[in-house]
């Protein structure tokens, strides 16, 4: 194969004409077109995006409830506290976005979701949105989440990023277990926890869970710079089981999520947003 590689490289090089014409592209024109594209994409009527999102949300949720989950592994948490998402726990079946109870749309989280969407297979991103919880628990704590829905061919992807996944901000609201891998109680074999390095500090684990559908993600504790409780941030891809385990391109070369398309600075901005 090495000889083939050298031959092909040489052959492709030979396929390029020696008399290459000068580049006829104008960077100013490209930037003008890019700005127009940027404005148009931002100005897409919300109603259109919302209707697409409603379909995308409804399809996997409906399938999750209608199909048996023969490969579903015991997760060691009572199912009543960590159910897979169903159409019944959708906050409002008539709403365009699946906002968990106690949450509301957040412009800041929307911006973060847009950032995440820009780094996914962007041409197929159907909707992205962010939510923020009402204050819960002691210490005026709040929860935060961003979601991206996208389509690749006949497959649907769902990327969620959550700040806090336990206690008053249960991950079960999003179809995730509470703090997978972060404690001895939740570091269960069926979660397939693997520690991963975090340049910014803290402790992180990748996890992979069968919930009837496959969930693969990263969870980590990030010390609160202001003191108090640590932050628990989870990033996860949720893949509807009905489509089988066919990795999305974002996962193809990452057997486990050891990287995330958002910087730790952006995550820091997310979780330190003033109320």
């Amino acid at each position, binding site marked *: 194969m090495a000889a083939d590689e050298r031959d092909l490289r040489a052959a492709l090089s030979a396929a390029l004409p020696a008399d290459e014409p000068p580049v006829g*592209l104008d960077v100013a024109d490209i930037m003008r077109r890019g700005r127009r*594209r940027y404005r148009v994409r931002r100005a897409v009527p919300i109603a259109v995006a919302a209707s697409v999102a409603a379909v995308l949300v409804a399809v996997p949720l409906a399938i999750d409830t209608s199909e048996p989950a023969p490969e579903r592994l015991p997760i060691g948490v009572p199912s009543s506290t960590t159910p897979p998402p169903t159409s019944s726990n959708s906050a409002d079946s008539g709403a365009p976005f699946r906002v968990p109870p106690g949450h509301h749309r957040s412009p800041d989280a929307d911006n973060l979701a847009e950032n995440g969407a820009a780094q996914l297979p962007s041409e197929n991103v159907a909707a992205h949105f962010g939510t923020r919880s009402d204050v819960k628990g002691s210490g005026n704590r709040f929860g935060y989440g961003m979601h991206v829905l996208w389509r690749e061919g006949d497959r649907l992807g769902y990327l969620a990023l959550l700040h806090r996944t336990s206690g008053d901000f249960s991950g079960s609201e999003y179809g995730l277990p509470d703090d997978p891998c972060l404690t001895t109680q939740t570091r269960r074999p069926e979660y397939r926890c693997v520690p991963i390095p975090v340049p910014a500090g803290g402790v992180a684990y990748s996890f992979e869970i069968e919930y009837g559908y496959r969930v693969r993600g990263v969870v980590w504790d990030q010390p609160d710079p202001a003191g108090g409780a640590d932050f628990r941030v989870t990033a996860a891809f949720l893949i509807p089981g009905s489509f089988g385990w066919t990795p999305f391109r974002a996962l193809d070369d990452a057997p486990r999520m050891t990287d995330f398309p958002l910087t730790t600075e952006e995550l820091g901005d997310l979780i330190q947003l003033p109320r």
Partner: protein
Amino acid sequence: MAGASDGAFAVYFTDRVAALRRSAYLLTGNWHDAEDVVQAAFVRLFSVWHRVREESADAYVRQVLVNVFLNTKRGQRNREYPVAEVPDGPVPAADAADRLAVSRALAELTPSQRAVVVLRYWEGLSVAETAAVLGVSAGTVKSQTHRAVSAMRPHLREDHGAS
């Protein structure tokens, strides 16, 4: 969406446009379509430039380039293209034969196979990187590579003289 980032984009464009256009030429088979594809890729890159980290710009623009090519090529296999200028005289025989053989071999591949060949052997991407660009599994890249190389090998050995 304006200001200093425009300058950075212009620098990036200047640095990368020629190389990307060569890749696009290998995909499309002519300079005209190659420039169209490259322009579309840079327009999309600029529309998200403020969010794309510089180190990921290459991967992004390469991915858009290939996607634009694949989208425009579906159903257009083996099209003939008009050329703006016909060469005045013969080009050197060896070069012409090489180019003709490789061009013919590339043209006989499916667009997806051509994309795999260009990404793997021209851009030098790994199987995993190629899979990420194309949005397919590593196994698909390997099988496409095998088919493409098998299809091209007779042309290359007969006409190009590769061993």
